[in-house]
């Protein structure tokens, strides 16, 4: 079930529909795309009771103005675009109800770059090659393969959780981490670090690099001490992972991002950890970047810690949306009944609606 939910009044600088990307199609030369800052999109989805990977809007630099065509619940996560509903400030990183006819306006970002808007039920655009993400280089996916324009009407899917159950959800303070001036990106060396001199690798790991104005969804260019190759920058073209640091002949690194081309022929000295690729999505030209080496084992341990942050959110909000809830009316009181299923065994919890204090016990 889908319904029209949002009308684009002003599109903002570059607003696209994105989910967690297109997996499995790089062999066809199709970029993976997806949200540039997946940390923010996943959190926004959890706030409104969606699956983490539901499609939302990625607003860049200056956000859109949207008119609600139905009552829904939204969450905006990422740098502060000073959102307003009908002129009243909206809290970032919190589930917020919006009524049909109300205007939601996102402004210009002061720090950071990309904010994410999730809507209960998720933005409903056709699945293309397994994803709802917009692929700008090949002009498909998302909303007709392009950035939003004024007058576009966006539909949403059926919301998994009713707005009442998630009102008041907000991200813990500092959960997203700071938007610092200087950014240290953790990398694992390879796949072609053997194409660089030891001096070149030292330069890369100790040098100070500055982000150049050439930055978009495909990649960012950096400027700093040149990284020396052993013998030329060219390799036989191969697959480019997300966060690959490729170094052309001029020795100035380029980090490849969501809409990167799938294959390329410059030697790749290292790959940036996903979590840090998402932080990179919030940087702006002129900012300073350092690289820090990690072993694959350390990087994977970092990934477990990263995922634990999302599990903590889910656990904190469980019972409000993860499992079906029933409302029981009894002697003028209402109770919320949660059921967790198993093989012939069910755990039933009962909460009094008014004060949410557990009234009944558990029954098996």
């Amino acid at each position, binding site marked *: 079930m889908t319904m029209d939910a949002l009308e684009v009044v002003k599109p903002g600088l570059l607003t696209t529909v994105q989910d967690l990307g297109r997996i499995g199609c790089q*062999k066809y030369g199709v970029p993976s795309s997806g949200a540039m800052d997946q940390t923010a999109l996943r959190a926004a989805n959890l706030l409104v009771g969606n699956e983490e990977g539901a499609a939302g809007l990625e607003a860049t630099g200056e956000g859109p103005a949207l008119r609600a065509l139905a009552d829904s619940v939204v969450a905006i996560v990422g740098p502060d675009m000073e959102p307003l509903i009908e002129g009243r400030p909206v809290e970032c990183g919190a589930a917020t109800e919006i009524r049909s006819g109300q205007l939601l306006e996102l402004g210009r970002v002061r720090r950071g770059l990309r904010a994410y808007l999730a809507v209960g039920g998720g933005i409903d655009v056709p699945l293309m090659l397994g994803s709802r993400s917009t692929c700008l280089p090949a*002009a498909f996916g998302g909303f007709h393969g392009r950035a939003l324009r004024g007058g576009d009407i966006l539909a949403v899917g059926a919301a998994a959780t009713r707005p009442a159950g998630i009102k008041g959800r907000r991200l813990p303070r500092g959960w997203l981490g700071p938007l610092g001036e200087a950014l240290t990106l953790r990398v694992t060396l390879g796949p072609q670090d053997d194409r660089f001199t030891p001096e070149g690798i030292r330069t890369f790991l100790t040098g100070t690099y500055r982000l150049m104005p050439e930055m978009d969804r495909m990649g960012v260019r950096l400027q700093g001490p040149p990284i020396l190759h052993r013998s030329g920058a060219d390799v*036989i*073209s191969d697959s480019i992972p997300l966060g690959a640091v490729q170094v052309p002949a001029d020795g100035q690194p380029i980090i490849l991002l969501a809409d990167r081309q799938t*294959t390329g022929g410059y030697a790749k000295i290292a790959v940036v950890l996903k979590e840090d690729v998402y932080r990179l999505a919030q940087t702006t030209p002129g900012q300073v970047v350092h690289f820090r080496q990690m072993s694959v084992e350390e990087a994977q341990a970092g990934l*477990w810690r990263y995922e634990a942050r999302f599990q903590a959110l889910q656990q904190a909000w469980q019972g409000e949306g993860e499992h079906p809830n029933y409302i029981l009316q009894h002697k003028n009181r209402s109770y919320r009944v949660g059921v967790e299923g198993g093989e012939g065994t069910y755990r039933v919890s009962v909460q009094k609606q008014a004060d949410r204090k557990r009234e009944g016990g558990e029954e098996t």
Partner: protein
Amino acid sequence: MVELGDGINVALNLQVRALGLAVERAGLAGVQEAVPTYRSLAIYYDPLRIGRGALKENIDALLCSTLDQVGHRSRVVEIPTVYGGICGPDLEFVARHTGLSEDEVIRLHTEPLYHVYMLGFTGGFPYLGGLSERLSIPRLHTPRLKVPAGSVGIAGTQTGVYPVESPGGWRIIGRTSLCLFDPSRQIPTPILPGDKVRFLQIPQQASQETATAARH
């Protein structure tokens, strides 16, 4: 990244393709995708679901069982192409640069059965091997901002077709109305790695008819 050698040749490329297919067929939990290129296979996996050591063991086993049985039937995909004119604005330059007539350029380009080494760039660009050395030509100094979808280009010792409109620095000698990228299909490209490709010269008129027919 599994590197099977260092060079560009069909035998090595077919080994990469065989391993890619074997990895997909094995359906290992946690393996997200395998991307075959000229001489290496990139395997993307979720380390939360499969450890690096376990993955390596599985791949090593597949390597032993697949590399000696590359038995593989290539399909031949024909690409009807209009050469020269507005479809191939660089044909004249290529002829002048190579000291050939335009007809000779077309003959040399339509003669070989090209090997599809890989798909890449954005949206199914086929990297083809087998271009006549006599057609070798440098890229444009300044890439075009917009190359129309279906444009057939050459650069260095390579030839290929632009599946979608994109910027590009290859010399454009013709255009095909064959759709090389359709994201609404489960397999979005008619050409797959390991296939063979032949260009067929067709007159301008026929191309328009094909395009019209394709639309209906």
